[in-house]
Every structure is written in C-alpha cells, then in structure tokens.
C-alpha cells in the first residue's frame, strides 16, 4: 500500500483511533495493533506474500536464537552461514532468477526456462534488516528480545517496504525501553507535518517532473534519436523526480514512525548539495550506504589494505549495489560508474583542492564548483538507472556527451522549464526537512548532520514550530497533496 494513496490515508484514519483505544488499555494491545496493521498494510497488495514475510521472520528469529545459543561453536558458524545463504537465496530467487536465466540463455545459448516471478514488495528491505540482525547476533551484539519485539522490528509499516533499513540496535532498544504506548499530540503534530511535507514532495514536486522524464525516456526507448537538449532534459527531469520521490518517501516514513512514538534513522539529507561523490553517498539513501559499507565494503577489504584493494572493494560494493536496485545490466553499469567515481575520488583526494581551505569567497566558489560537478555526474549516471535497457542508455549517453542525435524532431514540451529554477532552488539553497524539524528530533542520528546557516526569513517560514503559521503551512501542504493524489506514479523505491 503506497503512502501516497487514498487507500493509505483511509488506513491511517482507521488505525489512529483503533490504536488510540488499544494503547489506553496497555502496551501489549498497542503493540499487537501495530503489528496487525503492518501485516494488513503489507498484505493489501498481494495477501499471499504475507506467507513469505511471516515465514522469513520466523526462520530468522529462530536461527538467531540458535546462533546466540551456539555462538563461538562450529555449529553456530554453520547455522549463521546457512541463514545468510537462505536470506540471499530468497532475494536471489525472487529478484534475480529471471535475469540470471536470461543472461545465461543469451550469453551461452542455453534454453533455460525463464521463471516469471512477481517480486514481493519490500523483500530487499526486510531481508537486509534480518541479514544485519543475524550478523550482529553472530558478533554477540544483540540483547535478548521477545519474539513480538522482533516481529515489530521487521514489520513496523513505516519502514517495511522501502526503508529506511533499520538496524536491531536502533529499534529493539526503543521497544525494550518503551512503557507508555499512548498516542501523544506532541508526536502526532510534528509527525503529521513531516508526513505532509513528504506527501507534498511526492505528489506535487516529483510527479510534476515525472511525465517529462517518462515521455523522453519512452521516446528514446522507442528508437527516436533525442537531441542533446532533450537527452539532458530527460536526465535532469528524472534527477528531480527520483530526488523528490525518495526524499518524500523518507519524510513520510519518519513522520509516520514518530506519530506512534518511534524514531527511524535519517535516510536522506540534501544529496544534491553534496560537494563530491563520497559526500553524495553519505546523503543519498543513507541507511543503504551504511548497510553496504558495513556488510560489503568493509568485509571486502575497505580502505585499510592499500589503494588497489580499496578500489576493488569500491567497485565490487557499488556494482553489487547497482544490481540490488534492479536485475538488469543497466543497473550494474550505473553501480559500476559510481564505483569508478568513488575510486577516482579516493585516488585523487590527496591532490584535489580542499573545499574548506581559503577565504570565504574562495571556499564558496570551490564548494559551488564541486557541487555542480557532482550534480552533473549524478544526473548523467541516472540515465543508466532510468533507461529500460543498455541500448537506450547508450543512445542517450551519446546524445549527452557527443551531442549526437541532432536529427531529433522531438518537440519537447517546454511546460517544465519555468519550474526548473524552483527545483534547483529547493535542492541547492533551501533547508531540508531534517533541518526544518531538527528541534523535534524525529529521526535517529539527525544531530550528526550539521545544521547549515540560512537566512532568517527562510528559518521563520520553514522551520516547524508549535505556531499557527507552521500548522497553516502543514494544512496547505496536506490539502494540496490530497488533491494532487490523482494520476500518481508509484514510488520508485518500492520496486527494489
């Protein structure tokens, strides 16, 4: 059930009073209501896939307890390895079986049957959380928790189907410490405000850019040679579409969690303000970057075994990260491109001018240049992420880099042009929602992300306080989003 849908808003309209009543009667009832609601939320799409979710939870919790009991023994190690393999196998089957079979058929000329499997929504997210849980368990880092707490940790609906990827260390202590489960206005109001901000980003800002990106990518996929302006416009429109889609989703998830008194980890922090590709990955899908760093990059060698090993680890991590986003060669190339960029950033870091050095003007110019170059690279690479196949991505890349495709007769609908300055203003100059809601500490780790200095007027207008103007802004954002819900495109990250 997408957050940005009438069905979800109706779901919340029912859940909140039910939860209110349940929480008054005790913590257990409140917990059960939220677990039940989360399962309804998940099963709304295809009820049958609840079996996979519940089965995965039972198996992983049981395995975790056995690993805990036998930690340090060969049997414990074996069970742990089996658990990881089972989780990866589950994702592998649903996500990559068709891709692998098609690749083998195409490369080796075999005639393998290509399985047509419908991907259970959110499988990557709930599986990654459980892989992290097993790894932490094998290291002895997990305190004993009740089965219901574990179920809650995995299925809590704000983070179930598209992240943030929450670690056990972030959620289980909150569950253990919580005694009062009642709804509180001080959680509800900022939660609703952040949810409304996210809904506005999704339904207005992202979906306004989407038709232009869709139209141009669709034309390119159908064989039309896009001119360089059209190809760059396609990439820029998609860059804004996915930015506001994911930023909006992350805000909604954190806002929803907070409504019920839980803090989810920060997941998105103005990535287009990044002054370098390493900075970008510290700001984009923060919890996935963290997962890949902790469970892939560091085990592959990280940065402590010399530059060649670091480069290999980066390329491997990012290429697999690309594959995680989708079973297609274009996703692999997208990840590889980012791996290359990160490797280059590591290699050239000693000789690159530091952003923080020099006078204020020099620093500002250097920062602006780094931000611009990073944005151009990220936007360029999005073509490989969005294009339906390698051929389309290649054709568009040729147009973007070599100004090829000048025979294009595409008359680009210029309707998006007046809004482009607004998009750039938002992503480059305005404070983000982490900063605007910072005082309410709604997300975990938000204090690690420095608050930039903004003009007084911006702070007064955008920072959420218990003032009438903040509530008016929230009501406008919610109402506009409500009426913008028609003709929605689905969240991009749901497919991962």
């Amino acid at each position, binding site marked *: 059930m997408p957050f940005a849908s009438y069905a979800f808003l109706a779901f919340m309209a029912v859940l909140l009073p039910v939860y209110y009543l349940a929480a008054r009667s005790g913590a257990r009832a409140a917990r059960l209501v939220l677990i039940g609601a989360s399962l309804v939320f998940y099963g709304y799409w295809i009820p049958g896939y609840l079996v996979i979710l519940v089965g995965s939870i039972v198996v992983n919790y049981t395995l975790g307890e056995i690993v805990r009991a036998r930690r340090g023994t060969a049997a414990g190690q074996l069970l742990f390895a089996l658990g990881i393999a089972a989780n990866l196998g589950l994702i592998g089957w649903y996500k990559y079986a068709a891709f692998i079979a098609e690749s083998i058929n195409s490369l080796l000329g075999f005639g393998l049957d290509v399985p047509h499997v419908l991907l259970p929504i959110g499988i990557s997210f709930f599986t990654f959380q459980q892989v992290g849980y097993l790894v932490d368990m094998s290291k002895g880092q997990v305190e004993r928790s009740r089965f219901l707490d574990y179920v809650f940790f995995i299925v809590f609906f704000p983070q179930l189907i598209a992240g943030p990827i929450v670690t056990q260390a972030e959620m289980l202590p909150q569950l253990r410490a*919580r005694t*009062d489960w009642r709804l509180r206005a001080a959680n509800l109001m900022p939660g609703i405000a952040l949810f409304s901000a996210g809904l506005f980003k999704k339904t207005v800002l992202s979906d306004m850019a989407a038709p232009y990106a869709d139209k141009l990518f669709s034309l390119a996929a159908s064989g039309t040679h896009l001119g360089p302006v059209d190809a760059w416009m396609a990439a820029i429109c998609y860059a804004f579409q996915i930015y506001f889609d994911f930023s909006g989703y992350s805000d909604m998830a954190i806002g929803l969690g907070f409504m019920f008194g839980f803090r989810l980890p920060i997941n998105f922090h103005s990535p287009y303000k990044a002054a370098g590709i390493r900075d970008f990955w510290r700001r984009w899908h923060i919890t996935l970057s963290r997962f890949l760093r902790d469970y892939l990059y560091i085990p592959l060698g990280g940065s402590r075994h010399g530059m060649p090993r670091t480069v290999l680890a980066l390329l491997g991590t990012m290429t697999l990260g690309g594959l995680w986003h989708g079973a297609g060669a274009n996703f692999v190339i997208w990840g590889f491109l980012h791996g290359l960029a990160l490797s280059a950033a590591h290699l050239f870091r000693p000789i690159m001018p530091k952003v923080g050095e020099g006078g204020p003007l020099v620093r500002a110019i250097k920062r602006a240049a780094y931000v611009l170059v990073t944005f151009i690279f990220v936007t360029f690479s999005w073509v490989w992420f969005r294009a339906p196949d390698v051929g389309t991505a290649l054709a568009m890349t040729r147009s973007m880099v070599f100004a090829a495709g000048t025979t294009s007769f595409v008359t680009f609908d210029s309707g998006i042009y007046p809004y482009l300055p607004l998009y750039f203003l938002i992503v480059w100059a305005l404070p983000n929602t982490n900063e605007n809601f910072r005082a309410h500490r709604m997300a975990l780790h938000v204090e690690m992300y420095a608050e930039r200095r903004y003009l007084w007027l911006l702070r007064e207008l955008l920072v959420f306080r218990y003032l009438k103007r903040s509530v008016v802004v929230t009501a406008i954002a919610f109402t506009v989003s409500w009426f913008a819900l*028609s003709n*929605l495109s689905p969240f991009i990250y749901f497919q991962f």
Partner: protein
Amino acid sequence: MSTHPNHSSREDEERESRARRMLRLFALLVGVTWGVAILTNLAVWHLAAQPRYQSNVQMTVGWARIMKPILADAYKPQIEVFGRSWARDAFDPETIGGLTVKRFFNHAVSGGTAYENRRFVQSQLAVNPDLQLAILNVNSFRQRLDEPVAHPGFDPSILNTDAEGRPQNGVSAARAFAITLSGASVGFDIKFADILYRQEVLGQSRFETLASYDRMDYAKRPKVSAARAHIIDGAARTTAASNGDENRLQPDFAIAVKALCDAHVDIAVYETPFSMSSDQCDATKSQGLETYDLIRSLQAHCASRISYYDFNYPNAITMEGVSRPTDKGIFYRSDGHPRPPTGQIMFAAITGSAMPRQADGLQFDPDFGIDLMTLDRDAYRAWAADKGGRCMGKWRPDDLQRLLQSTDSDPGQ
C-alpha cells in the same frame, strides 16, 4: 528538551498541550478546505453535466478516466465512442451533432488501454439500455505485452461492473468521493473553468480553446518528402514501414464485443487513419486480417451487427501534407492525432450520414469507408493488398490521379 519522544516532564506536558491546540487547528483548517472544495466541485459538476458543455467536457485532456464513466451514465448516449486519444480528439460531440439526432458521447481517454476500454464498455452497458451503436477504435485494443494494463487515474471502484463484468457494490460512494474530494475533481474543475472562462468571458471559440483543434504544421515534419517519395513516387524503402506490428489485439476486444452483442448493441470497429507524413505506412495489413477474421468469428454468435472500417491507408485524409503541400493541417493535430473534421468524415462513413463540408473537394476512392465485413475473405485480402500496396507506391493510375486532384478547402477550423 526531552531526548525521547515518550519522556515525560513539565516541559513535555506544556508541549503536549500546545500540540493538542495545533492538532485542533490543523483539523479545522483541513475540514474547512474540504468543505469549500466539496461545494465548488459540486457546482462545477452541475455545469459540466449540461449538454451545451459536452464538447468542452468530452474533449478535455486529463481526468477523463474518472469523469467520463460518471458523465456517460448520466447522459445515457445512444451512440458512444470508445478508444484512446486518437478517438478522443477526433469526435467532437458538437460537430457530430450536425450529423445525427441521436445522443452521442465520446468516451475515449488519453492512452486508453484494451483493459480500460473493455471495463468502460461493460460499465456503461450495465446502466444504459438506450445504447444503440458502439464505435470501437480497434487500435486502442492493440498493445505490446510490456504495456501497462491500466494507467494511473483509472479507478475501477467507480465502474458499475467488476473485472468479470458483474455488478459491483460501493459504486455510489466511490463516485461521490471522486466528484467531491478527489484530486481528479479539482484538476477537472480547474481545466473546465479555464476553458469556460476563455469561451464565456474572453469570447474565444472552441477551436481556440480545445486542444483537439490544434493543427499540424507539415512544414515542420521532416519525413514528408520521404513519405512522398515512397508512397507516390514508389522509391524503395530501406527500412520496414508499419504502424506498430508488435502490437497485438488483446482478448479484451472480444470480451467487449461479446458484451455489446449480448446487449443487442450494434458495433462499428474502425482503424485510426494515421497521417502518412511520418512515413509510417502499414503495407502488410496483417493486423487488419487478424481483426477481420476475429470479427467474422464473433459475428457468427452475435445478434447485432458488427461492421469494420479501415481508414488507415494512403487516401485523401491521411495523405494531407504529403500529396499536396500545406502548412496548416485540417485533418491532424501537430502530434498526429486526427482532428474533429477527420472524425466527422469517419462518423459519416460509419453511420451513412451525408459527408460534412470538410470533405468538399476531397476525391475519395469509390470504396472509401466501406464496411469491410460486407466483403468475403478473399475480397478483403484483395482490398487490403491494394491499399497496402500504396505504401510502396503501387497505385492504380485512376486512384493516384484522383488523390492528386483532391483539394482540401480550409473551412477555418
């Protein structure tokens, strides 16, 4: 300040109290906004349902998937067109009104898929016993396998029937919501109000205010000379020319036809006349034969009449801008959609009405607009081979002469 959302202290209690007041204000603001929106939407809906605004309503781009099924039920048309934007832009209720006295409704929607159109047909049949003729744009029932079954904005809960064609519950509530509190209602209101303002206050005609009356500028079409070389001069093609051979007729077409047959509604199936100026010309007509065969088999079990019209071959309409140089098209919009004058000619051919004045000066083939189901299979194949051959420059001398003598007098629309 508290470090945990559930921490309790005097400061927390004060914040809780302030937050409660803010929540009440938020609920009040949203409630008032919704109230205003509901009243505004109902007022605009009242206007939109009036017969004199049907051109504006039925040819408006956007939100048609929500609005048209509800309007059609209220309007109870006797003749109804189903399809996608190729049909939406072609059939203007006002100009069609000059060709028939029957109530007409254009139910086509942007990008309408086979599934969506089949559902619209079934929904309409469930409540409209007055329907006598359904005009199906067969191209809308052909799709690639990777195309979506339905597009965003398609809301099955507002249709009278479910996916199996059975009556479904809760339709009234879903429609009440769609008309009063959905984004579609507000979007439609704004669009409709804008058109109305331009027509009623600024005095603009519907030719200026409706996007369907946009006109193709053939001077900007880069493939006109190539099309002329291939179709008129017979120059060999280096690439295959077709109109989406990968599109397959979906089972929804047969389901829709059977539903119409069961309701004793006559059916006219037609092929969109695509502009030849893009140098896309269906030489093989293999899809046409597939459609012909399917209709023949469906007709065997159908009490009502099924006719089939193919306007998609080089003729006086589709060759506009190719056979005769012209800057402003009468028959096509700049995106290639047939304009209302094309719809009038097609409607006249389908219903046997007198040709509209846009057809003055056009030299049609003697068999233009014939019901292809009156031909046996061999005769149909001969017809298709003759018309498809034109894509390769193979004309009967009289036919080419007739086409080149055509003049399209601009009626100023």
